[in-house]
């Protein structure tokens, strides 16, 4: 009996020690960590820059940031040594993107391809987040207007200014799966006021898919593909497929890539790509992006 009492007291003693030591530092740290995890946190840097290769990513530039982009495509590699494997030829787009807010950016550009001007805005409708009430994806809407300023083919007939215009409406649904891996889907609708042949469709639909895989902290490999839906496809064109690398150095991002598209605005890129990868109609190209902060410092 006496032994039993001693045992019980010993157990009490243990309980007391347990009770005191139960809340040691790692426990209070866990409590604090839990609080932090519950807080809603927006996912950032799904992609390095606002363009994947030719087309848009879900990314915007920040408020008050101007991003000057020079995009350059050489000619087709299979043109041979006479054209120095395409290096003699150039298609260029010069443009600028500006962030009005962190969720709204506007951009303009001019391409040598069909002497096209383009203007767009990109609005983030949803932002991927973690914590309480998390959202699994980022969703952006990008309407673009493109103006082709080549001289009319037949000046003798009555030509309308509106014939030069085409419209693009694009949604981008993106998810950053991990620190290194991001994917996006880009359903796109394009309307051309004027097409070459009566049989050509004015309304076109395409579904784009793209992604990036980081290789190091500052280098990633990107893939971009636009599939034109067979019923709404521009005849005699191919689907745009591009593979490239993002190389980031401070305020610059260099993008080097291989693509079968010459055009760099959605309308040209998605519905007017003529190159065929299988035949070697591959163009080497690069984009250079430099950002300037011209608004106030981020608050």
């Amino acid at each position, binding site marked *: 009996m006496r032994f039993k*009492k001693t045992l*019980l*007291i010993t157990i*009490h003693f243990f*309980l*007391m020690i347990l*009770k*005191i030591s139960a*809340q*040691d*530092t*790692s426990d*209070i*740290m866990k*409590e*604090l*960590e839990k*609080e*932090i995890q519950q*807080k809603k*946190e927006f996912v*950032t*840097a799904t992609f390095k820059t606002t363009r994947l290769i030719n087309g848009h990513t879900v990314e915007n*530039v*920040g*408020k008050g*940031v101007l991003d000057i982009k020079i995009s350059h495509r050489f000619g087709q590699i299979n043109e041979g040594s006479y054209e120095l494997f395409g290096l003699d030829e150039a298609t260029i787009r010069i443009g600028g993107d500006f*962030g009005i807010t*962190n969720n709204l950016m506007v951009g303009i550009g001019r391409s040598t391809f069909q002497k096209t001007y383009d203007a767009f805005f990109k609005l983030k409708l949803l932002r991927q987040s973690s914590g309480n009430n998390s959202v699994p994806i980022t969703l952006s809407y990008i309407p673009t207007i493109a103006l082709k300023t080549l001289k009319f083919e037949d000046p003798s007939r009555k030509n309308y200014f509106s014939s030069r215009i085409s419209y693009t409406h694009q949604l981008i649904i993106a998810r950053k799966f*991990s*620190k290194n891996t991001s994917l996006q889907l880009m359903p796109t609708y394009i309307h051309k006021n004027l097409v070459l042949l009566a049989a050509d469709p004015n309304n076109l639909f395409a579904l784009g898919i793209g992604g990036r895989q980081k290789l190091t*902290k*500052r280098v990633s490999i990107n893939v971009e593909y636009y599939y034109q839906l067979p019923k709404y496809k521009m005849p005699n064109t191919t689907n745009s497929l591009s593979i490239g690398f993002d190389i980031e*150095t*401070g*305020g610059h991002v260099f993008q080097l890539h291989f693509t079968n598209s010459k055009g760099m605005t959605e309308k040209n890129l998605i519905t007017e790509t003529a190159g065929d990868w299988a035949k070697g109609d591959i163009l080497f190209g690069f984009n250079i992006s430099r*950002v300037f*902060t011209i608004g106030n*410092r*981020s*608050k």
Partner: protein
Amino acid sequence: MLKKNTTLFLILITLFVSNTFAQQNDYKVKSGTISFKSEALLELIKAQSKELKGIVLASKKQFAFIVSISSFKGFNSPLQQEHFNENYLESNKYSTASFEGKIIEDIDFSKDGVYSIRAKGNLTVHGVVQERIIKSDVIVKHNTISLKSNFTVLLADHNISIPKVVHEKLASEINVEIKADLIVK
């Protein structure tokens, strides 16, 4: 039967005593700011977070402080903030910075006064743990603790490498300042 009651009583007393003992002197950060400054040749970078969290168990002289890396704001540009998170602190992988350990001095936090204390513990930044002793100034008034502390963090100590091209824009030693008000939990 009597023995059983005594046992029960003992258990209750034990729990009661240890409970009051442990909870009497727990403090929690009500508002906390942590800011850092990198003074390099070509660029001054400053950022701060108002989301510093922390707990001090005065009875056991223990403490823990933590902050979410992505809560730092005030950089020179949005891109700089992105680089801070993506390339330097890798907040996706190491989402927090923390400091936990014990207070060296015996301070009675129930008494008002101004104290200078040293906290010894593990500082975790970028997933790398460093044992540090950090000095703090503490003012206790009506059960509220106002804490202020300055210390430096060497980037190399925490495995944060600086590419050559930004050597003149980023200091290798970062000044950190903490200000926090703690109240009884």
